[in-house]
């Protein structure tokens, strides 16, 4: 391993992308409107694509002839560094939309800042991903507004989703040692600056959606350090099944 900290830093975002992409893939064929089924699958596909770019880079840093698939398929839950937000079950369409919105408002500003990373490889992955994420954030924000300001039922459902997810929104902007070391070394992103922009965006969209902003300030955390919810074990059982059942094969 040439750079343990950079490796950990990259995995944080790679795992966010993979796990959320995996969750969105569960929607495939079951969306509420054909056009939105396509949108959910499309975002899932973008996220898997982003995960691959990060894993490929992380595998090179790791050396030992590892590949993207070793990182995705052969680590157990404690090795994953994604935030708890992205492993939350899909719930109804409103819950999925709110989870997506709370993630997109992070990732969009994260990539925007990472484009100025001193690490050229990270900067180029960020540039590509930022374009995709701008579209994701537009889509999820539009749906938050549409559902929030739609019918009484849709308003109540999406408000309920917001209340439940509120305590999961901040883990992603709380610094770990990987985050602070990355920032100090010049290839990372300032989460404090990001949080300001992100919070302003969240507030603006929720207001337009006529939703009430929850008052709670408590934040669940642990995911970035490998301590997850019970959900992740099942996600990995599904995701890793073939690689675990038939080890060492080409697919």
């Amino acid at each position, binding site marked *: 391993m040439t750079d343990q900290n950079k490796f950990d830093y990259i995995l944080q975002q790679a795992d966010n992308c*993979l796990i959320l992409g*995996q969750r969105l*893939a*569960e929607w*495939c*064929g*079951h*969306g*509420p*409107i*054909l*056009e*939105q*089924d*396509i949108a959910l*699958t*499309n975002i*899932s*596909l973008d996220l*898997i*694509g982003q*995960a*691959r770019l990060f*894993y490929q880079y992380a595998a090179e840093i790791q050396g030992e002839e590892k590949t*993207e*698939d070793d990182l*995705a*398929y052969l680590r157990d839950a404690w090795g994953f560094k994604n935030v708890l937000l992205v492993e939350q079950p899909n719930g*109804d*369409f*409103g819950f999925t939309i709110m989870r997506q919105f709370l993630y997109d408002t992070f990732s969009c500003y994260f990539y925007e800042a990472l484009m100025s990373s001193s690490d050229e490889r990270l900067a180029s992955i960020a540039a590509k991903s930022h374009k995709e994420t701008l579209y994701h954030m537009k889509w999820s924000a539009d749906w938050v*507004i*549409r*559902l929030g*300001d*739609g*019918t009484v*039922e*849709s308003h109540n*459902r999406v408000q309920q989703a917001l209340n439940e997810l509120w305590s999961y929104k901040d883990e992603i902007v709380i610094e770990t040692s990987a985050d602070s070391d990355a920032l100090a070394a010049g290839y990372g992103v300032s989460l404090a600056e990001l949080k300001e922009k992100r919070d302003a965006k969240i507030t603006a969209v929720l207001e337009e959606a006529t939703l009430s902003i929850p008052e709670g300030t408590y934040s669940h955390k642990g995911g970035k350090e490998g301590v997850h919810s019970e959900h992740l074990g099942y996600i990995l059982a*599904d*995701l890793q*099944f*073939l*690689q675990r059942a*038939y080890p060492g*094969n*080409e*697919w």
Partner: protein
Amino acid sequence: MSTELLEQKFNEKIDQEVRIEPKDWMPEKYRKTLIRQISQHAHSEIVGMLPEANWITRAPSLRRKAAALAKVQDEAGHGLYLYSACETLGVERDDLLADLHSGKAKYSSIFNYPTLSWADMGAIGWLVDGAAIMNQVPLCRASYGPYARAMVRVCKEESFHQRQGYEIMLTLCKGSEAQKKMAQDALNRWWWPSLMMFGPTDADSKHTEQSMRWGIKRFTNDELRQKFVDVTIPQAEILGLTVPDKDLKWNEERGHYDFGEINWEEFFNVISGNGPCNKQRIDARKKAYDDGAWVREAANAYAEKKAKKKVA
């Protein structure tokens, strides 16, 4: 213009291979036949998403996962342009979906079979998409313009899916014993249902003659089935897999493969609702539609509010 004269003009266009467009006069039966066929095709695309979606979360590598997502997304896209082509004939998508959910409208029976292993993702691409292409390429020349144009795009993507499926099979067949077994098992289960995709024999096909007269159909079911067998057997040989038909042999005189009798009892059973997954597939579609009702209502309510604000 009298109906007879209109019909005569319509037939002249068909004979001269001039495309019929949405605003042209057409016989009511032609319109109904098209709605039945195009909507059946659209339904097949969206029901067909389900057996493959079943393996997306378990795809064995990130590359395969991305390809599987892209493939199922293409199918949703095909559903979308086929429903749109259907709407040019004066029907609404919601009404077509209601017919699918009630069982009035059919979809391709092949999707009533389960996907039991990863190799099924290969077999579906190779055989099911392969058979679909045989059926669909001639439709790019169908007499109805919007249908023909939709099919050009569908066929391009299907042929990519077919190669991708075959490549999954090839990788498995070059792999471990367990992987080869998986591939053979998939071929055993998907071979006969794939041959059934061409529909009943010509003698029993009630729609073929009229559809050929109208230029909606270009080849008979049996012609297409034979073509599929002839193309696919050499591909199975390259894989080193055994096609599960003891009567299969090359007929030098005919210049085609002879093959065994299809189990028509199974075919008609699956069509009439007794396939292994008929209930699950329709239940899944209905659930998606019913669970989505509040979302569609919200989208409409919001759009109306916006429109009112614009006027005000």
